[in-house]
């Protein structure tokens, strides 16, 4: 194409930098000048990544962006992991932003649903984290990225600290494709403790004067763990972890998995499983894992993000965690999601609804919470090629006819919960609320967290259903009904068939595993309070104020 200009993006970036420089001293932009600065660097219709996920938030930049004049800056296309702060949605109310591609919206799930219904937001799609990151490099590359770091030096080298999370991915996609990168930092220092993001990728730095906001999302108070949850944890450990010898895994964030973590040094120890299971994790630094780490269970953990209060503990346990030369944790969401997908043999987590086929969802008709990372963790990667014992065994259970050398293994994807969950809502339903929501919003896909064909086991207080061993649709359905307790779904079981499935080991009751439900006692927990966790860490774990009862 003779005469075509092949460097328009570099030219546009130079214009943005020139415009922004009028409000900056070197790379430094004062918070008070952010409004004028943004008007100089943003163009209507820009694709903008405002950094924020389920943990860290570029909160100062979000506030400034939401205060812009929509006649100057409008119709932005937001491409970001999290819709978490009120400002993330205020931008759409005001018309500053129009189109949205995102992944997670926990705390704003009700408001985002209302705005989607009323047409205030033009929705591209709801993604998993890894999917959205992938699209940053293909068809959702940001023009501008607004990111958050702990500190910067005068050249714009950034220290993102324990909560590095999405930042390297966002910067990589934006800066190397001629996009503009603006970072809010807690402080500007002479020399950063370590360089997480090289300064030549960062165009402007805003000293916020305070640390960015971080949500302690992965802290579960052991005091709130119930005996039913302890029973489900015992079932999972003895009925799944032990027979498959699951060493590499990811845990969801519910109380059931927290109970598993706290049972490892007690119940797991009694079963002789130390060193045999749970040695390698793709996992945030869950405080509830401290007793197991201290008891020598865990060899290695790679993390998506950090967890508030765990910083000193992580730094003092660098044999277990990934840490930088400065001593603090280095997390990376994209890498950890990849690790969870390809290098873990099991995902176990809880959900809100499971249907008769085994599809599960955390969506209700009035809340759109998004996906985060669970669908990625909770799926069987067809690109996996390396063997491991649990993967091969699960593959064999699912398919006993294909010759072993040609047989795919299977990732263990376990849903764990009580037949009646929070507010006595049944876990098992005829039809997912996600379907009604998809109809209401005219979506082409219902927001399913884990698809039926990925789920291998369901654990409730009534027992374990091994769906790998089901040979037809009817068996599959009865196996689910067979652990659905006194829910409508459970009561409509075919009792004879359920007994046949039990005889084949497809369904295992607590007594089949030699577990007495009366042994499910809180005394089995290696820590029963936040203070126990702090003590177990030798005082290194400092629980956030809202989790303390002292």
């Amino acid at each position, binding site marked *: 194409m003779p005469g075509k200009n092949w460097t328009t993006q570099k030219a546009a970036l130079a214009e943005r930098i020139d415009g922004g420089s009028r409000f900056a001293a070197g790379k430094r932009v004062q918070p008070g000048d952010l409004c004028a600065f943004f008007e100089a660097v943003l163009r209507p219709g820009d694709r903008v990544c405002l950094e924020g996920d389920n943990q860290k938030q570029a909160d100062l930049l979000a506030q400034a962006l939401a205060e812009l004049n929509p006649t100057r800056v409008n119709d932005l296309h937001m491409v970001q992991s999290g819709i978490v702060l009120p400002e993330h949605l205020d931008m759409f109310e005001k018309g500053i932003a129009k189109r949205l591609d995102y992944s997670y919206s926990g705390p704003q799930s009700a408001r985002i649903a209302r705005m989607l219904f009323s047409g205030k937001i033009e929705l591209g799609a709801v993604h998993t984290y890894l999917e959205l990151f992938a699209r940053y490099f293909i068809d959702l590359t940001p023009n501008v990225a607004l990111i958050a770091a702990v500190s910067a030096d005068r050249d714009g080298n950034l220290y993102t600290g324990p909560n590095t999370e999405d930042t390297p991915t966002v910067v990589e996609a934006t800066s190397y494709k001629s996009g503009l990168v603006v970072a809010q930092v807690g402080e500007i220092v002479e020399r950063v403790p370590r360089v997480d993001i090289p300064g030549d990728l960062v165009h402007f730095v805003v000293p916020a004067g305070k640390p960015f906001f971080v949500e302690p999302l992965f802290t579960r108070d052991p005091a709130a763990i119930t005996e039913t949850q302890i029973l489900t944890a015992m079932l999972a450990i003895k009925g799944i972890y032990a027979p498959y010898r699951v060493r590499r895994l990811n845990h969801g964030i519910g109380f059931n998995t927290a109970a598993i973590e706290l049972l490892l*040094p*007690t119940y797991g120890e009694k079963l002789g499983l130390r060193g045999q299971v749970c040695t390698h994790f793709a996992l945030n630094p869950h405080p509830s894992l*401290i007793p197991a780490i201290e008891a020598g269970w865990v060899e290695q953990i790679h993390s998506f993000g950090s967890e508030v209060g765990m910083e000193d503990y992580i730094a003092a346990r660098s044999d277990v965690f990934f840490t930088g030369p400065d001593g603090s944790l280095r997390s990376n969401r994209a890498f950890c999601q990849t690790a969870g997908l390809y290098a873990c043999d099991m995902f176990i987590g809880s959900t809100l609804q499971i249907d008769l086929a085994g599809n599960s969802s955390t969506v209700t008709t009035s809340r759109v919470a998004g996906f985060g990372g669970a669908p990625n963790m909770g799926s069987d990667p067809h690109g996996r090629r390396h063997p491991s014992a649990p993967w091969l065994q699960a593959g064999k259970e699912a398919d006993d006819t294909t010759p072993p050398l040609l047989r795919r293994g299977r990732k263990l994807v376990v849903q764990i919960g009580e037949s009646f969950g929070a507010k006595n809502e049944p876990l098992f339903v005829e039809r997912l609320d996600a379907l009604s929501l998809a109809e209401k919003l005219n979506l082409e896909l219902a927001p399913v967290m884990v698809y039926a064909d990925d789920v291998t086991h369901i654990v409730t207080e009534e027992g374990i259903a091994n769906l790998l061993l089901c040979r037809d649709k009817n068996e599959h359905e009865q196996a689910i009904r067979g652990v659905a307790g006194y829910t409508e779904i459970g009561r409509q079981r075919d009792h004879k068939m359920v007994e046949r499935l039990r005889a084949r080991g497809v369904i295992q009751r607590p007594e089949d595993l030699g577990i007495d439900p009366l042994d499910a006692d809180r*005394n089995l927990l*290696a820590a029963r*309070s936040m203070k126990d966790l702090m*003590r177990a860490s030798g*005082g290194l774990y400092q629980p956030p104020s809202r989790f303390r*009862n*002292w």
Partner: protein
Amino acid sequence: MSQAATTTQRRVSWFEATARQRLAALLDPGSFTEFLGPAAREISPHLALFGLPAQFDDGIVIGQAKLGGHEVFAAAQEGRFMGGAFGEVHGAKLVGLLRAAKAASRDAVLLLDTGGVRLQEANAGELAISEIIRAIVDLRAEGNSVIGLIGGRAGCFGGGGIIAGCCTRLIVSEPGRISVSGPEVIETNRGVEEFDSQDRAFVWRTMGGKHRYLTGGADCFVDDDTTAFRAAAIETLAGRTPLTVSVLEAEQARLKARLKRFGAAKDGSEVWQALGVTNPASVPGMDTEEFLNATKAVRESADDAR
């Protein structure tokens, strides 16, 4: 084995225990005779109207027993049933027990774990609170002691907080909380700027066991451990202080002075600072022995009324 695992097995947590487990651990083994136990099925006549489940003991266990060889009447509230709240039957059982203690001239031990009055039977509950207060004062006026033990999940709030204030002595552990208005109530009425009920560390700094011990709101601070509660209760029962007008007057003077001294404080830690605690910020993190050593010289003590 990790330290946490072995600690859990050794210690029986008062906070974790049920009302019946607490009584079993507190009292001399085999000495407890229950009055109006679950077999009597004296259930709340009100809860069914609200579609709420009842309990056969209405959430309180009462009876007589020995404690360190000493004959006592004992009551334990079950914090897991209706938040240990006072309803008609629940309250009447405690009133009856205190009156029986007076008739028998016995000391009483109250294992309080309550959010206050049960909203579903508020009138009966409020009446019960006043009757309990009167019964405690009558019992104490005869020279008997009423010991309150507080360290349960529900804390000791509402009318329960007032009852605690009428006891001869209070034994408290760190997770125990004593107050009349609870954190959410204060926040609702006075705003989050006045009191952030979600800030749990702040809640404990202003109504938790350590704070109450430091300001004389409780007399004895023990580990969250049934054995520690038992030892403290036996030791406390050995003392004997009749309730007289001069005791009340002395306490009134102390409370006036306290208000003057600490009235402007916005946070428990400011009170500790004013008391002369060195490094108040470290108080919440201290274990029991360290805490008692660091504060015994500066804490306020009550004048046998509070």
